[in-house]
């Protein structure tokens, strides 16, 4: 050993040592990387489009292992674009952010919210544009939001929040009740789904043409399932469907229509000795 150390140039020994260690650790590291990515502890490398779109500083930050930090600063930059109503720039910035942190649902939700809700709302009131252009852009942004949501869902298949934001775009902007119902339906049973999505799935199905019978069966099922579901909106929707589908009276739910509850009169009940006009008989 001593002879080898004395005869062999140190540089050769160092390189040999490095190479030997490299050969040993490479397969171990590859396996560990795959596991860490699977466990979502390590982010997968950003897509090539994202690399091309990144500014120099963002790229350096990413290469330096500061992807989360870069994503936060890009979020601040995106907020500036939002303040300036620069929707194209905002969308481009979020494209990079979601490439940097594809597993963070919040980025996808915010991107959909900005493009699907804020940009479309801006198109409804922006006087600088002619009406036809506003309408065209309104639908273009709404459809872009749908596309973003679909990409987000593909990346995070278990995400309830992305689906709920997508449902909002369908509900509020595209006024597509069938699609809204479908998206709420897809959300049911997901880990972070809120309890109201079950009811909303039915409410919007009731407004989807041709799905009334299915909606009635579904909502009645919810009604029968638990007394906790006997909420005013659910009762109103079932009542509307009962009327629309001509459901026989005995099969209808017993609750009174909350919208048609007798209004309490503000007038005082006349006293027994009171005549019309307020005259009192002594």
């Amino acid at each position: 050993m001593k002879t080898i150390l004395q005869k062999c140039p140190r540089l050769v020994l160092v390189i040999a040592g490095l190479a030997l260690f490299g050969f040993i650790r490479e397969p171990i590291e590859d396996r560990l990387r795959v596991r860490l990515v699977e466990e979502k502890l390590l982010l997968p490398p950003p897509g090539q489009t994202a690399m091309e779109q990144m500014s120099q500083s963002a790229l350096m930050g990413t290469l330096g292992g500061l992807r989360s930090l870069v994503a936060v600063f890009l979020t601040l930059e995106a907020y500036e674009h939002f303040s300036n109503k620069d929707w194209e720039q905002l969308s481009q910035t979020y494209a990079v952010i979601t490439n940097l942190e594809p597993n963070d649902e919040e980025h996808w939700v915010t991107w959909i919210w900005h493009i699907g809700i804020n940009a479309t709302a801006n198109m409804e009131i922006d006087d600088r544009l002619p009406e036809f252009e506003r309408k065209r852009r309104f639908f273009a942004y709404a459809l872009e939001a749908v596309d973003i949501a679909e990409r987000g869902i593909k990346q995070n298949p278990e995400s309830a929040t992305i689906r709920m934001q997508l449902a909002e775009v369908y509900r509020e902007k595209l006024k597509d009740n069938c699609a809204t119902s479908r998206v709420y339906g897809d959300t049911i049973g997901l880990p972070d789904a809120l309890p109201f999505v079950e009811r909303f799935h039915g409410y919007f199905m009731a407004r989807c043409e041709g799905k009334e019978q299915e909606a009635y069966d579904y909502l009645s099922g919810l009604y029968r399932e638990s007394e906790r579901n006997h909420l005013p909106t659910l009762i109103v929707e079932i009542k509307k469907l009962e009327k629309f589908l001509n459901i026989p009276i005995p099969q209808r739910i017993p609750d009174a229509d909350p919208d048609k509850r007798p209004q309490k009169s503000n007038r005082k009940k006349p006293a027994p000795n009171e005549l019309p006009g307020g005259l009192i008989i002594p």
Partner: protein
Amino acid sequence: MSDSNATTPTLRPPTAKVPLFSLGRVWTIAASTVTQLVRMKTFYFLLAFALVVVAVGNFNIPTTPAKELSMIKKVSFGTMDLFAWLFAIVSTALLIPRDLEDRTLYTILSKPVRRIEYLVGKLGGVLFVVGVSLLAMYAICAVMIYAREINFVGAEFEAMKADSSYTQEEIAEQLTLIQKQGLRAELGIAVLASFLKASVVAAVTIFLSTFASSSLFTIIVSVLLFLIGHAHTMATNFWLHQSDSNLFVQMLVKVIKILIPNYQLFSFSEGVVQGEAINYAVVSQMGMLTGGYLIVFLLLSLLVFVDKEF
């Protein structure tokens, strides 16, 4: 004067055999390294860190409380990670040249101190300071996260309670959502991840500093290696795609992967900060890998340092 008359001094036999490796000597060198680093006023950067955390804690972006907490965590832990590896590079790169400059190295090596003990002691001292700094930074950001979490939970609870349309269940769910992004014990693993990364960086830097001619060279090369080591996977995919998996590119990529450590692996703190579940088996494997890096790079450093003349 003849040589025969001269009295030859007899060497005193050693009182005790010098052990091959002494933890006591390593400890002494590590302690002196810590003192050396503290005297360089290195802990002042904690002030800058605290400022960053306070600034990010007061972002006023219209977003959900959970998202705001997540942003505070990401910036705090990102900055923590940055400080840790940068500190590991700069402090390690400065130590050996500083000892040479102060002539402390001659004094140390003239004593029965083995060179491996000197290297281990130096690295140990740096890692101790990095560890303490990380803990201090974690304490600062934990205070901020906890304060904001309490604030958000209280405000959200009041707001939802005032609006009678929310059920108790919905309020509880919303509060859980916020608390999920708040202060959790798992964040300690994110600190550990940064420490592991800084340890490997320090080991590589100490190896470079054994043959480097100046601190500046060591710092620049270490930072470059850090960037390349981080871009391994990204660059590999990119180059192979661009060159249609050309044989030359494949070989070049292989050489880089073998010679330069893969620092990207140690960025698993990002997932932990985002609230992903922790697989402790993988974390322990990462710990063992770090141990491997430390041993190999210390041995390689020794190989260069062992008969270096000063």
